[in-house]
């Protein structure tokens, strides 16, 4: 099956607050998705609805071709790791792993223990006593070892240090290559994950405002660098989304310079061409609405 999630006109209303407004998208098999947006944009609510932990107000929702609510065929194939996950008070790290192993059919216990070593988690310590970063690591380990056909990470690395985050990306990519599955990463740290993402969705104030393959997105803009006068000449009349002067030099990010002709022209002017950072692009495309989150 190629369509893992199909959402049509999905809406969620709390009282008189519309958390998710008429969202439509599909998620295809064996790709890595980025679900981006600021805090409170509605990302978590959407994922809660996909995993049947919350109820939609209206709209259509199909996961693995079926309604997810009270459906074991669907639910056993999803692993949803969220920053706000609660654990029973008396549970130790090992208890979490053993219990997770019972509910995920593809669970790999050896892999889980390997990850425990790498993230340096104390197996016998109570989850309640873990630091914020360690708690995040528990979620990440469950998410990776579950090998669920649809694995969703919602802000999985609160409090996690840079080394551990790198480790997470590395292990995610390696394991994804060996055991292809659909991964949805919801995060603020766009630049960090930009190399992983194959497809980007941006949610703002409950609405889906961008839904594009990363490659297509990247092709929409380039960054040109050179002496100020040369760059100015090249970018005249173009849509410049970012400029960064440095002494007599200037680097500018320009939209709509996708064609080879234009690139050749830039090169003939002696400019250096570089791809644009995904974060900058998204910040621009969303009218700055994710800027704060992106910088955080």
């Amino acid at each position, binding site marked *: 099956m190629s369509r893992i999630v199909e959402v049509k006109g999905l809406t969620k209303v709390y009282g008189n607050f519309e958390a998710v407004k008429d969202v439509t998208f599909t998620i295809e098999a064996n790709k890595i998705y980025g679900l981006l947006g600021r805090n409170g944009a509605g990302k978590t609510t959407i994922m809660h609805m996909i995993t049947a932990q919350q109820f939609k107000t209206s709209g259509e929702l199909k996961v693995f071709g079926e309604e997810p609510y009270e*459906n074991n065929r669907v639910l056993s194939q999803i692993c949803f790791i969220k920053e706000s996950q*609660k654990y029973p008070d008396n549970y130790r790290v090992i208890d979490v792993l053993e219990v997770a192993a019972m509910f995920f059919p593809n669970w790999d216990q050896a892999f889980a223990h390997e990850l425990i070593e790498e993230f340096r988690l104390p197996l016998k310590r109570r989850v309640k006593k873990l630091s914020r970063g360690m708690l995040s690591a528990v979620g990440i380990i469950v998410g990776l070892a579950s090998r669920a056909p649809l694995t969703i990470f919602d802000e999985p690395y609160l409090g996690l240090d840079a080394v551990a985050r790198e480790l997470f990306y590395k292990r995610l990519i390696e394991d994804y290559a060996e055991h292809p599955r659909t991964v949805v990463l919801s995060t603020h740290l766009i630049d960090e994950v930009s190399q992983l993402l194959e497809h980007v969705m941006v949610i703002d104030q409950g609405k889906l405002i961008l839904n594009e393959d990363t490659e297509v997105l990247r092709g929409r803009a380039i960054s040109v660098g050179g002496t100020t006068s040369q760059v100015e000449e090249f970018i005249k009349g173009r849509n410049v989304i970012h400029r960064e002067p440095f002494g007599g030099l200037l680097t500018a990010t320009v939209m709509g310079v996708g064609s080879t002709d234009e690139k050749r022209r830039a090169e003939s002017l002696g400019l250096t061409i570089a791809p644009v950072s995904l974060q900058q692009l998204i910040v621009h495309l969303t009218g700055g609405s994710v800027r704060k989150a992106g910088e955080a």
Partner: protein
Amino acid sequence: MNRSAGVMKMHLRDKLGFLYLPWIILLASFFINLIIGGLIQEEKGFYSGGMMSIFIYMLVMGIVVVPQSISFALGLGVRRSDYFTGTASTLTMLSFIFSAVLTLLSWVEAATSGWGMKLGYFHLPYLFNGSHIQEFLVYFLTMLMLSFWGFIIACYHRRFGKAGTFTLFIVLFLLSSLFSFYMTYFGDWMAVFQWFADKTAMDLAIRTIPFSIIFAALSYLFLRRSTV
């Protein structure tokens, strides 16, 4: 694998809360009573109500189990119905085992004439009516009713939140006040006491069954519509 059984195992991994703690409390109280029994050397022996603690614990267990585990279970992709059957089975199984152990201790207590100290802790008049099977049923049905009572409170809270629980208790308080007023006004209290006094422990235990069933059914309906 069977996901309801998974939910049972999930609960029982917390051995302290589900297995050890009720018995630590009960046995601590028991040993204190035993020491007192040894010190006072009462001719006619004496009775203690310390066994009550484990019944109260079952009520508490029913309440606590839901907030402890439901977010975690739903987070692992467990269905609400599997969560219900797994949890209800856990409470039933523990009530069964605990009651069996209590009955066994009652038998030992009777056989050793109150642990050699004429202490009545597990083997109590009224609750024991000549048959250990009946005694077991009294314990089991009472524990079942209490734990499902706790369970329905927790499920209701899960479904309707703080405001809903608050409203429910205000309504219950008003209704019970009205009822109490009515009973006092018409002088019917004695009849109620008499009704209870006429019943054996077994009579009353059997009458808890419909309550347990209603509690379980409503708990299920509340859980079906609850979110994380």
